[in-house]
Protein backbone atom coordinates (compact mmCIF):
# COMPACT_ATOMS: atom_id res chain seq x y z
CA UNK A 1 0.00 0.00 0.00
CA UNK A 2 1.47 3.35 -0.95
CA UNK A 3 2.53 5.57 1.88
CA UNK A 4 3.48 8.56 -0.18
CA UNK A 5 0.95 11.04 -1.48
CA UNK A 6 2.67 10.93 -4.84
CA UNK A 7 2.16 7.73 -6.82
CA UNK A 8 5.12 5.52 -6.50
CA UNK A 9 4.14 2.34 -8.27
CA UNK A 10 3.68 2.90 -12.00
CA UNK A 11 1.37 0.39 -13.55
CA UNK A 12 -0.58 -0.30 -10.43
CA UNK A 13 -3.85 1.29 -9.55
CA UNK A 14 -4.28 1.63 -5.86
CA UNK A 15 -7.84 2.45 -4.99
CA UNK A 16 -7.09 2.48 -1.29
CA UNK A 17 -5.23 4.80 0.97
CA UNK A 18 -3.69 3.99 4.28
CA UNK A 19 -3.70 6.13 7.39
CA UNK A 20 -0.50 7.90 6.39
CA UNK A 21 -2.07 8.83 3.07
CA UNK A 22 -4.97 10.37 4.90
CA UNK A 23 -2.78 12.43 7.20
CA UNK A 24 -0.72 13.61 4.24
CA UNK A 25 -3.87 14.46 2.38
CA UNK A 26 -5.30 16.34 5.35
CA UNK A 27 -2.23 18.55 5.27
CA UNK A 28 -2.55 19.12 1.54
CA UNK A 29 -6.27 19.81 1.78
CA UNK A 30 -5.57 22.36 4.52
CA UNK A 31 -3.05 24.07 2.27
CA UNK A 32 -5.50 24.19 -0.62
CA UNK A 33 -8.27 25.50 1.61
CA UNK A 34 -5.83 28.08 2.88
CA UNK A 35 -5.52 29.45 -0.64
CA UNK A 36 -2.58 27.48 -2.03
CA UNK A 37 -4.26 26.22 -5.19
CA UNK A 38 -0.99 24.82 -6.52
CA UNK A 39 -0.90 22.31 -3.65
CA UNK A 40 -3.83 20.53 -5.28
CA UNK A 41 -1.38 19.18 -7.85
CA UNK A 42 -0.23 16.64 -5.26
CA UNK A 43 -3.76 15.28 -5.00
CA UNK A 44 -4.10 15.18 -8.78
CA UNK A 45 -0.83 13.31 -9.16
CA UNK A 46 -1.68 10.89 -6.41
CA UNK A 47 -5.19 10.07 -7.60
CA UNK A 48 -5.15 10.62 -11.36
CA UNK A 49 -4.53 6.99 -12.21
CA UNK A 50 -7.28 5.49 -10.05
CA UNK A 51 -9.77 8.12 -11.17
CA UNK A 52 -8.97 7.68 -14.87
CA UNK A 53 -9.16 3.91 -14.56
CA UNK A 54 -12.42 4.16 -12.69
CA UNK A 55 -13.81 6.39 -15.45
CA UNK A 56 -12.50 3.94 -18.05
CA UNK A 57 -14.59 1.22 -16.49
CA UNK A 58 -17.64 3.44 -16.76
CA UNK A 59 -17.21 4.34 -20.44
CA UNK A 60 -14.35 2.29 -21.96
CA UNK A 61 -13.22 5.33 -23.90
CA UNK A 62 -9.79 6.70 -23.02
CA UNK A 63 -10.40 10.28 -24.06
CA UNK A 64 -13.72 10.41 -22.31
CA UNK A 65 -12.23 8.78 -19.23
CA UNK A 66 -9.69 11.61 -18.91
CA UNK A 67 -12.38 14.22 -19.41
CA UNK A 68 -14.51 12.63 -16.73
CA UNK A 69 -11.57 12.34 -14.36
CA UNK A 70 -10.69 15.99 -14.91
CA UNK A 71 -14.26 16.99 -14.11
CA UNK A 72 -14.12 14.83 -10.99
CA UNK A 73 -10.94 16.61 -9.83
CA UNK A 74 -12.50 20.01 -10.44
CA UNK A 75 -15.60 18.96 -8.51
CA UNK A 76 -13.40 17.65 -5.70
CA UNK A 77 -11.43 20.89 -5.59
CA UNK A 78 -14.62 22.91 -5.40
CA UNK A 79 -16.04 20.74 -2.66
CA UNK A 80 -12.83 20.25 -0.71
CA UNK A 81 -14.22 22.10 2.27
CA UNK A 82 -17.07 19.61 2.48
CA UNK A 83 -14.80 16.65 3.11
CA UNK A 84 -15.57 15.43 6.61
CA UNK A 85 -12.28 14.26 8.00
CA UNK A 86 -13.72 11.22 9.76
CA UNK A 87 -14.13 9.40 6.44
CA UNK A 88 -11.06 8.64 4.37
CA UNK A 89 -10.13 11.03 1.61
CA UNK A 90 -10.22 8.23 -0.96
CA UNK A 91 -13.79 7.26 -0.04
CA UNK A 92 -14.88 10.86 -0.39
CA UNK A 93 -13.00 11.34 -3.66
CA UNK A 94 -14.30 8.13 -5.24
CA UNK A 95 -17.80 9.01 -4.18
CA UNK A 96 -17.53 12.40 -5.91
CA UNK A 97 -16.02 10.75 -8.98
CA UNK A 98 -18.79 8.16 -9.16
CA UNK A 99 -21.39 10.92 -8.98
CA UNK A 100 -19.66 12.87 -11.72
CA UNK A 101 -19.30 9.84 -13.97
CA UNK A 102 -22.90 8.79 -13.43
CA UNK A 103 -24.26 12.27 -14.10
CA UNK A 104 -22.05 13.03 -17.08
CA UNK A 105 -22.68 9.69 -18.74
CA UNK A 106 -26.40 10.16 -18.27
CA UNK A 107 -26.11 13.61 -19.85
CA UNK A 108 -23.96 12.47 -22.76
CA UNK A 109 -24.06 8.67 -22.89
CA UNK A 110 -21.24 6.69 -24.37
CA UNK A 111 -22.17 4.39 -27.23
CA UNK A 112 -23.55 1.23 -25.76
CA UNK A 113 -25.24 -1.91 -26.92
CA UNK A 114 -28.13 -3.47 -25.11
CA UNK A 115 -27.36 -6.68 -23.27
CA UNK A 116 -29.28 -8.66 -25.90
CA UNK A 117 -26.96 -7.34 -28.59
CA UNK A 118 -23.88 -8.55 -26.77
CA UNK A 119 -23.13 -12.08 -27.81
CA UNK A 120 -20.72 -14.60 -26.46
CA UNK A 121 -18.13 -15.23 -29.15
CA UNK A 122 -18.19 -18.89 -30.08
CA UNK A 123 -14.59 -19.22 -31.21
CA UNK A 124 -14.64 -16.33 -33.66
CA UNK A 125 -10.87 -16.60 -33.94
CA UNK A 126 -9.16 -19.79 -34.86
CA UNK A 127 -5.63 -18.49 -34.45
CA UNK A 128 -5.11 -19.63 -30.96
CA UNK A 129 -6.92 -20.09 -27.73
CA UNK A 130 -5.41 -17.01 -26.16
CA UNK A 131 -6.87 -14.70 -28.77
CA UNK A 132 -10.23 -16.37 -28.36
CA UNK A 133 -10.03 -15.84 -24.64
CA UNK A 134 -9.05 -12.21 -25.04
CA UNK A 135 -12.00 -11.56 -27.33
CA UNK A 136 -14.34 -13.25 -24.91
CA UNK A 137 -12.96 -11.32 -21.97
CA UNK A 138 -13.40 -8.03 -23.75
CA UNK A 139 -16.95 -9.01 -24.69
CA UNK A 140 -17.69 -9.75 -21.04
CA UNK A 141 -16.27 -6.40 -19.92
CA UNK A 142 -18.28 -4.55 -22.53
CA UNK A 143 -21.38 -6.50 -21.52
CA UNK A 144 -21.10 -4.94 -18.06
CA UNK A 145 -21.79 -1.57 -19.66
CA UNK A 146 -24.90 -3.00 -21.29
CA UNK A 147 -26.40 -4.02 -17.96
CA UNK A 148 -29.30 -2.03 -16.53
CA UNK A 149 -28.16 1.03 -14.54
CA UNK A 150 -28.83 -0.43 -11.13
CA UNK A 151 -26.56 -3.44 -11.74
CA UNK A 152 -23.89 -1.84 -13.90
CA UNK A 153 -22.43 0.58 -11.39
CA UNK A 154 -22.22 -1.89 -8.49
CA UNK A 155 -20.34 -4.30 -10.72
CA UNK A 156 -17.99 -1.61 -11.99
CA UNK A 157 -17.19 -0.36 -8.50
CA UNK A 158 -16.96 -3.80 -6.91
CA UNK A 159 -14.26 -4.92 -9.30
CA UNK A 160 -12.58 -1.52 -9.36
CA UNK A 161 -12.23 -1.82 -5.60
CA UNK A 162 -10.77 -5.29 -6.05
CA UNK A 163 -13.89 -7.03 -4.75
CA UNK A 164 -14.05 -4.95 -1.60
CA UNK A 165 -17.78 -4.85 -0.99
CA UNK A 166 -17.62 -2.24 1.78
CA UNK A 167 -15.53 0.16 -0.30
CA UNK A 168 -17.80 -0.24 -3.31
CA UNK A 169 -20.90 0.34 -1.19
CA UNK A 170 -19.32 3.42 0.41
CA UNK A 171 -18.44 4.84 -2.99
CA UNK A 172 -22.00 4.40 -4.17
CA UNK A 173 -23.43 5.56 -0.87
CA UNK A 174 -25.70 2.55 -0.49
CA UNK A 175 -25.91 -0.14 2.22
CA UNK A 176 -23.74 -3.19 1.78
CA UNK A 177 -26.79 -5.44 1.65
CA UNK A 178 -28.23 -3.52 -1.26
CA UNK A 179 -24.87 -3.61 -2.99
CA UNK A 180 -24.64 -7.35 -2.49
CA UNK A 181 -28.12 -7.95 -3.90
CA UNK A 182 -27.43 -5.80 -6.96
CA UNK A 183 -24.11 -7.53 -7.54
CA UNK A 184 -25.71 -10.94 -7.41
CA UNK A 185 -28.35 -9.93 -9.91
CA UNK A 186 -25.81 -8.27 -12.20
CA UNK A 187 -23.55 -11.29 -12.12
CA UNK A 188 -26.49 -13.58 -12.80
CA UNK A 189 -27.40 -11.50 -15.85
CA UNK A 190 -23.85 -11.74 -17.13
CA UNK A 191 -23.79 -15.48 -16.62
CA UNK A 192 -27.04 -15.81 -18.52
CA UNK A 193 -25.47 -13.94 -21.39
CA UNK A 194 -22.21 -15.87 -21.21
CA UNK A 195 -23.17 -19.38 -20.13
CA UNK A 196 -19.82 -20.82 -21.15
CA UNK A 197 -18.14 -18.82 -18.42
CA UNK A 198 -19.45 -21.21 -15.83
CA UNK A 199 -16.76 -23.84 -15.80
CA UNK A 200 -15.82 -25.03 -19.23
CA UNK A 201 -13.49 -22.22 -20.13
CA UNK A 202 -9.80 -22.37 -19.56
CA UNK A 203 -8.12 -19.82 -17.38
CA UNK A 204 -8.32 -16.45 -19.06
CA UNK A 205 -5.14 -15.09 -20.57
CA UNK A 206 -2.98 -13.28 -18.13
CA UNK A 207 -3.93 -15.51 -15.25
CA UNK A 208 -0.27 -16.10 -14.57
CA UNK A 209 0.24 -12.36 -14.25
CA UNK A 210 -2.93 -12.23 -12.16
CA UNK A 211 -1.42 -14.62 -9.73
CA UNK A 212 1.81 -12.66 -9.72
CA UNK A 213 -0.11 -9.53 -8.84
CA UNK A 214 -2.07 -11.36 -6.18
CA UNK A 215 1.21 -12.34 -4.64
CA UNK A 216 2.44 -8.77 -4.92
CA UNK A 217 -0.71 -7.56 -3.22
CA UNK A 218 -0.20 -10.10 -0.48
CA UNK A 219 3.26 -8.69 -0.02
CA UNK A 220 1.91 -5.13 0.13
CA UNK A 221 -0.46 -6.12 2.90
Amino acid at each position, binding site marked *: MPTNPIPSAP*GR*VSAHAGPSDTSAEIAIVDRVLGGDVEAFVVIVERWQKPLINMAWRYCRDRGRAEEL*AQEAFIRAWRGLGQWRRESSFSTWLFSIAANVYRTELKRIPSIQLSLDQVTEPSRPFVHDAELDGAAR*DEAVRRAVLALPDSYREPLILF*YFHEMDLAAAAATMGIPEGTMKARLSRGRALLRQRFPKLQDS*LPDPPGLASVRK*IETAKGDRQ
Partner: protein
Amino acid sequence: MNEDRKTNQQTDNRPDSTPDDSAPDNLDRILLTEDTLHPSSGFTASVMEAIHERAAAPSSMSGPIPFPWKQAIPGIAALAIAIAILVRLIVTTVRSTDPTAQIARPIAWPAWLHLNSSFNSSVDWSQFLRVQAGPALLALAGSWVCVAVCRRLAAGRPIR
Protein backbone atom coordinates in the same frame (compact mmCIF):
# COMPACT_ATOMS: atom_id res chain seq x y z
CA MET B 1 -2.05 2.32 -24.76
CA ASN B 2 0.13 1.47 -21.86
CA GLU B 3 -1.40 -1.32 -20.04
CA ASP B 4 -0.78 -3.89 -17.46
CA ARG B 5 -2.97 -6.13 -15.52
CA LYS B 6 -4.29 -5.91 -12.06
CA THR B 7 -6.45 -8.17 -10.10
CA ASN B 8 -7.00 -9.68 -6.76
CA GLN B 9 -9.11 -12.42 -5.36
CA GLN B 10 -10.91 -11.82 -2.12
CA THR B 11 -13.37 -14.63 -1.92
CA ASP B 12 -14.61 -13.68 1.53
CA ASN B 13 -16.28 -10.58 0.17
CA ARG B 14 -18.12 -12.30 -2.62
CA PRO B 15 -21.48 -10.79 -3.38
CA ASP B 16 -23.37 -14.05 -3.20
CA SER B 17 -22.88 -17.57 -2.07
CA THR B 18 -24.88 -19.61 -4.52
CA PRO B 19 -23.24 -22.84 -5.63
CA ASP B 20 -22.41 -21.51 -9.08
CA ASP B 21 -20.46 -18.69 -7.49
CA SER B 22 -18.00 -20.96 -5.82
CA ALA B 23 -14.39 -20.01 -6.49
CA PRO B 24 -12.60 -19.91 -8.83
CA ASP B 25 -14.95 -17.87 -10.94
CA ASN B 26 -14.10 -16.95 -14.49
CA LEU B 27 -16.35 -13.92 -14.33
CA ASP B 28 -14.47 -12.51 -11.35
CA ARG B 29 -11.15 -13.13 -12.99
CA ILE B 30 -12.17 -11.48 -16.22
CA LEU B 31 -13.55 -8.42 -14.53
CA LEU B 32 -10.58 -8.13 -12.20
CA THR B 33 -8.05 -8.67 -14.96
CA GLU B 34 -8.69 -5.27 -16.41
CA ASP B 35 -6.47 -3.11 -18.57
CA THR B 36 -4.90 -0.29 -16.63
CA LEU B 37 -4.67 3.10 -18.26
CA HIS B 38 -1.82 5.46 -17.59
CA PRO B 39 -2.71 9.14 -17.60
CA SER B 40 -1.56 11.02 -20.65
CA SER B 41 1.46 13.23 -20.12
CA GLY B 42 -0.46 16.48 -20.05
CA PHE B 43 -3.27 15.34 -17.81
CA THR B 44 -2.07 16.89 -14.57
CA ALA B 45 -1.25 20.16 -16.30
CA SER B 46 -4.66 20.18 -17.94
CA VAL B 47 -6.45 19.63 -14.64
CA MET B 48 -4.41 22.29 -12.87
CA GLU B 49 -4.99 24.74 -15.70
CA ALA B 50 -8.74 24.20 -15.43
CA ILE B 51 -8.55 24.66 -11.67
CA HIS B 52 -6.49 27.85 -11.97
CA GLU B 53 -9.03 29.22 -14.44
CA ARG B 54 -11.83 28.57 -12.01
CA ALA B 55 -9.82 29.91 -9.10
CA ALA B 56 -9.23 33.14 -11.02
CA ALA B 57 -12.94 33.53 -11.75
CA PRO B 58 -14.88 35.38 -9.06
CA SER B 59 -16.80 33.29 -6.53
CA SER B 60 -15.35 30.11 -7.89
CA MET B 61 -14.47 28.38 -4.66
CA SER B 62 -17.68 29.00 -2.80
CA GLY B 63 -20.73 31.14 -2.62
CA PRO B 64 -23.95 31.04 -4.55
CA ILE B 65 -24.26 31.89 -8.22
CA PRO B 66 -25.05 35.61 -8.45
CA PHE B 67 -28.63 36.45 -9.31
CA PRO B 68 -28.90 37.63 -12.95
CA TRP B 69 -30.38 41.03 -12.18
CA LYS B 70 -29.83 42.39 -15.70
CA GLN B 71 -31.95 39.67 -17.21
CA ALA B 72 -34.53 39.75 -14.45
CA ILE B 73 -35.17 43.50 -14.31
CA PRO B 74 -37.60 43.66 -17.30
CA GLY B 75 -39.60 40.76 -15.90
CA ILE B 76 -39.68 42.23 -12.42
CA ALA B 77 -40.73 45.62 -13.82
CA ALA B 78 -43.52 44.02 -15.86
CA LEU B 79 -44.67 42.09 -12.82
CA ALA B 80 -44.67 45.22 -10.66
CA ILE B 81 -46.71 47.11 -13.26
CA ALA B 82 -49.18 44.25 -13.56
CA ILE B 83 -49.59 44.06 -9.79
CA ALA B 84 -50.07 47.83 -9.55
CA ILE B 85 -52.73 47.74 -12.27
CA LEU B 86 -54.46 44.81 -10.62
CA VAL B 87 -54.48 46.49 -7.21
CA ARG B 88 -55.84 49.68 -8.71
CA LEU B 89 -58.56 47.77 -10.52
CA ILE B 90 -59.55 45.94 -7.37
CA VAL B 91 -59.69 49.17 -5.39
CA THR B 92 -61.70 50.85 -8.12
CA THR B 93 -64.05 47.92 -8.32
CA VAL B 94 -64.61 47.80 -4.58
CA ARG B 95 -65.22 51.55 -4.38
CA SER B 96 -67.60 51.58 -7.34
CA THR B 97 -69.67 48.66 -6.08
CA ASP B 98 -72.85 49.37 -4.22
CA PRO B 99 -72.31 48.04 -0.71
CA THR B 100 -75.94 46.91 -0.52
CA ALA B 101 -75.51 44.73 -3.55
CA GLN B 102 -74.59 41.12 -2.99
CA ILE B 103 -71.66 41.54 -5.35
CA ALA B 104 -69.49 42.09 -2.31
CA ARG B 105 -69.08 38.31 -2.23
CA PRO B 106 -68.83 37.64 -5.93
CA ILE B 107 -67.75 34.04 -5.74
CA ALA B 108 -69.53 31.24 -7.51
CA TRP B 109 -69.37 28.74 -4.71
CA PRO B 110 -69.25 25.12 -5.76
CA ALA B 111 -72.41 23.13 -5.12
CA TRP B 112 -70.66 20.75 -2.74
CA LEU B 113 -70.08 23.60 -0.32
CA HIS B 114 -73.86 23.58 0.35
CA LEU B 115 -74.10 27.31 0.68
CA ASN B 116 -77.59 28.67 0.74
CA SER B 117 -79.14 28.86 -2.68
CA SER B 118 -80.60 32.25 -1.91
CA PHE B 119 -77.12 33.71 -1.97
CA ASN B 120 -76.40 32.42 -5.44
CA SER B 121 -79.73 33.46 -6.79
CA SER B 122 -79.28 36.96 -5.43
CA VAL B 123 -75.95 37.56 -7.22
CA ASP B 124 -76.12 39.93 -10.12
CA TRP B 125 -74.18 37.82 -12.55
CA SER B 126 -73.99 40.42 -15.31
CA GLN B 127 -72.47 42.93 -12.93
CA PHE B 128 -70.20 40.25 -11.50
CA LEU B 129 -68.81 39.41 -14.91
CA ARG B 130 -68.43 43.06 -15.84
CA VAL B 131 -66.38 43.98 -12.79
CA GLN B 132 -64.38 40.75 -12.49
CA ALA B 133 -63.74 39.69 -16.06
CA GLY B 134 -61.70 42.78 -16.86
CA PRO B 135 -59.11 42.33 -14.11
CA ALA B 136 -58.96 38.60 -14.72
CA LEU B 137 -58.30 39.06 -18.41
CA LEU B 138 -55.76 41.75 -17.66
CA ALA B 139 -53.96 39.50 -15.20
CA LEU B 140 -53.87 36.71 -17.77
CA ALA B 141 -52.50 39.06 -20.40
CA GLY B 142 -49.89 40.35 -17.96
CA SER B 143 -48.81 36.81 -17.12
CA TRP B 144 -48.54 35.95 -20.76
CA VAL B 145 -46.42 39.03 -21.43
CA CYS B 146 -44.13 38.14 -18.50
CA VAL B 147 -43.66 34.60 -19.76
CA ALA B 148 -43.03 35.78 -23.32
CA VAL B 149 -40.48 38.38 -22.19
CA CYS B 150 -38.66 35.85 -19.99
CA ARG B 151 -38.54 33.27 -22.75
CA ARG B 152 -37.23 35.83 -25.19
CA LEU B 153 -34.53 36.92 -22.75
CA ALA B 154 -33.55 33.36 -21.94
CA ALA B 155 -33.43 32.17 -25.54
CA GLY B 156 -29.94 31.44 -26.75
CA ARG B 157 -28.25 32.49 -23.53
CA PRO B 158 -26.11 29.75 -22.06
CA ILE B 159 -26.38 29.29 -18.31
CA ARG B 160 -23.10 30.22 -16.67
